């Protein structure tokens, strides 16, 4: 047995380099997403015109990801654009000093808005003009948003919620979403910028072409910030893939450490 093991060990040692031959990402699904403009060799044509819905608006539906803002959503802003009020700054400092110990997302609670976008995991936007609602399914922690487009107003005194309450309307070719009704436990991003129950988020979805959607997100929270601030995130399509079940509570052993 020992001989066999040492032989296997030797083989294994030489086989180590094979690790580099691991399949590259996004090849695990063998189905092509229908309705995607493609170049002659079959790859998605990112510069093709944005698809349109029956009502003539740019169709923002599909699986998307946001790359590069997973930790600090404000990293591209100039100093002074985000001014935290003292209480918010104290909360933020504590989250940093404790290594995000009370991070709700790490404890399987929904990511909130806009943080639910700020994951390496994809999400699926379903724009449904007939039902007059847009639904976003987030793979991360398996949560969702519904954005009502039937003309209703934001509720006056909604029950505080992780994902808030959202309404949407069109401003030309831009889909504008207003969200409020959060509770005070929100994290704006994974660095822990706070959001209070006064948080009001405006998102402007502008799909420039098939492969590029800019989403301008305005954070207006007078209890946390001295003035509203806006970041514009690039959304990238995630074609030929699908959402994966993500039951966060199943195996969440050691989510955080101080």
């Amino acid at each position, binding site marked *: 047995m020992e001989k066999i*093991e040492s032989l*296997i*060990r030797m083989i*294994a*040692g030489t*086989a*180590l380099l*094979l*690790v*580099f031959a*691991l*399949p*590259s*990402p*996004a*090849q*695990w699904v063998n189905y092509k997403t229908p309705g995607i403009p493609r170049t002659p060799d079959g790859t998605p044509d990112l510069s093709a015109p944005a698809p349109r819905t029956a009502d003539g608006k740019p169709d923002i539906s599909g699986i998307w990801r946001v790359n590069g803002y*997973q*930790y600090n959503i404000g990293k591209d802003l100039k100093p002074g654009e985000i001014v935290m009020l003292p209480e918010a700054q104290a909360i933020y400092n504590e989250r940093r000093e404790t*290594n*995000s110990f009370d*991070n709700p*997302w*790490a404890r*399987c609670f929904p990511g909130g808005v806009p943080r639910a976008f700020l*994951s*390496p*995991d994809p999400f699926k936007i379903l724009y449904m003009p007939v039902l007059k609602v847009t639904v976003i399914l987030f*793979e*991360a*922690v398996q949560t969702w948003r519904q954005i009502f487009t039937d003309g209703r107003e934001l509720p006056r005194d909604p029950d505080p919620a992780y994902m808030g309450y959202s309404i949407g309307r069109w401003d030309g070719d831009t889909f504008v979403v207003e969200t409020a009704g959060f509770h005070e436990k929100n994290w704006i991003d*994974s660095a822990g910028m706070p959001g209070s129950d006064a948080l009001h988020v405006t998102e402007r979805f502008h799909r420039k072409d098939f492969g590029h959607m800019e989403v301008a997100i305005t954070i207006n929270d007078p209890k946390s910030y001295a003035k509203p601030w806006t970041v514009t995130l690039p959304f990238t399509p995630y074609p030929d*893939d699908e959402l*994966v*079940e*993500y*039951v*966060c509570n*199943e*195996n*969440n*052993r*050691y*989510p*955080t*450490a*101080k």
Partner: protein
Amino acid sequence: MKTTRLATLAMFIVALAFAAAPAFGHHTLVAIYDTSKPFTMTGTVTMFDWRNPHVWFFMDVKSADGTVTNWGFELNGVNVLRRAGWTRDSLYYRFFKTRTHEKRLGDDFPEMVQKSVEVGLVLGEDTGHQVRRSHRGR
């Protein structure tokens, strides 16, 4: 049983530098593990726990004095690993390039504080890796 035989193989764990990107879907690598202190570990895989939000595997590691400790290795989620080409059988068929690192100070799991080391595993930029001593240690 070929699978069983392979599963009991000694795993070769090789320290490897990787970009210290703190971006993870679920929780943050650098918040829990000290990625600046890599080291190497070899052992026998005892369990592969293929579940979200983080996949774990467990490995018996023999120390110099002969004591065997069951360590837990934390990876990224099923979703990320599947897209990177892993399957729930991966651990039986593949060897990994890994990185190991010490646990950060302060922990809400006292039994782990006594073991001052943690182990990590890397499969490339987009896959996870992080390790802890097994909660169910022997």
